[in-house]
């Protein structure tokens, strides 16, 4: 596999920040943005390509975690505000109707734990792992 280029790392960084800003919870949103910035900053001088690839892979997995959360977090509405702190980002447009079906769909296919590769499961939904 070709090593990740600087451009790819930057794209990943931007994608992660973009997704993180979609958290409707103030605390999760600020944590994700802050943690991502700090992590990329901390590792910006890493030269070893193997180490870079490991970090990139971890970042990609974390990006998927954040993406999956967007469906789950649409359910929980509460938002923390301060009347007098205008520097906070406004939350994204609100309230998608909670859809159990959409949650199931996003979980069926995007997240099949790789360690279960040895099992074969047949079910009505046609999900199978092999």
């Amino acid at each position, binding site marked *: 596999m070709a090593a990740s280029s600087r451009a790819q790392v930057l794209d990943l960084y931007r994608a992660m920040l973009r997704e993180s800003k979609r958290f409707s919870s103030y605390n999760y949103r600020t*944590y994700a943005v802050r943690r991502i910035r700090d992590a990329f900053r901390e590792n910006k001088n890493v030269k070893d390509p193997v180490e870079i690839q490991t970090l990139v892979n971890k970042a990609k997995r974390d990006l998927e975690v954040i993406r999956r959360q967007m469906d789950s977090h649409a359910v929980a509405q509460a938002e923390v505000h301060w009347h007098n702190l205008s520097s*906070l980002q406004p939350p994204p447009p609100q309230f998608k109707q909670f859809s159990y079906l959409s949650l*199931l769909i996003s979980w069926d296919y995007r997240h099949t734990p790789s360690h279960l590769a040895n099992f074969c499961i047949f079910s009505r939904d046609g999900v199978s792992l092999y």
Partner: protein
Amino acid sequence: MLLRAAWRRAAVAVTAAPGPKPAAPTRGLRLRVGDHAPQSAVPADTTAAPEAGPVLRPLYMDVQATTPLDPRVLDAMLPYLINYYGNPHSRTHAYGWESEAAMERARQQVASLIGADPREIIFTSGATESNNIAIKELEAAIQPDTSLVSVMTVNNEIGVKQPIAEIGQICSSRKVYFHTDAAQAVGKIPLDVNDMKIDLMSISGHKIYGPKGVGAIYIRRRPRVRVEALQSGGGQERGMRSGTVPTPLVVGLGAACEVAQQEMEYDHKRISKLAERLIQNIMKSLPDVVMNGDPEHHYPGCINLSFAYVEGESLLMALKDVALSSGSACTSASLEPSYVLRAIGTDEDLAHSSIRFGIGRFTTEEEVDYTVEKCIQHVKRLREMSPLWEMVQDGIDLKSIKWTQH
């Protein structure tokens, strides 16, 4: 306290909003504290007009009571709440096998955080159950002279860190079992059960950004520590804790432990900085503020401050935009001042004036600054109203006053 009862009534009335209810009427449900607080003396720092908009809730600064789920923990748990719902003790099909594999992986994650072997981790419903199992061992001891030392690793009220390694050393040399309730410490400060010679340890899920309703007990195998089961049944968890292990919850606990291990240094550095900021900014603007607990052996995320001449409950009610506590959540219904503060020799009046500030992984600098600002504002205001404060300003020594009985 009338204030607290009124607040509870108000809170119950409006906390229906969050949750997966389709078409929940979130507009107009203003959990705006100002609308319900019975105090009239609070200045209008809240915008008065109740326009429709998102639900507002206080800042959360009570992490010792409980912590929010880390998104990475939720991500780990969800498959086991949706499709992978097998009973981990089912031996005959893939649902059981995959659930068991998840349970064992979680066990390894918990063990790795504290330097233990996975076979030494038993899942329970929380640190309270773990504590009970550990203490019950004392009654089940075979030798009459066996005893048990039980110490909290990090205190949940004042944040003091106990010298666990030293205590472990002493217990080990005297052949006495050593149990520690590490609920507030696991994943926040480095712990190693072998270096610290710990025989039994209680772990709580919801104190480390994991789910509520799950915990674990570490039980040393070498030398073997025998415990008696609190609940008997199908013999799960090596017979030490019967009952189906709740896979989604233990997966969450395992994920929380793994995340904690990765984030410990980063979190500790950040929390220390925020704690320093909070303490310095409060102390430089307010006189007569005492920090309870040893400042040197202290976990930074739990700050307990006493504001002299201000009643703790009044200050809590005044700080209505911030979720705080004046002591341990497990004793919050009683009116007694904290037994911990009394034990460290705090004066009665200062014990009643204490507030606990909790800083955690998700706390922001803005939240700390807002809390500091409001705290300073309300302490000053409450002191202005206090006759005791007035007397102190006039130079009267309160200890010299002979209060009369009516």
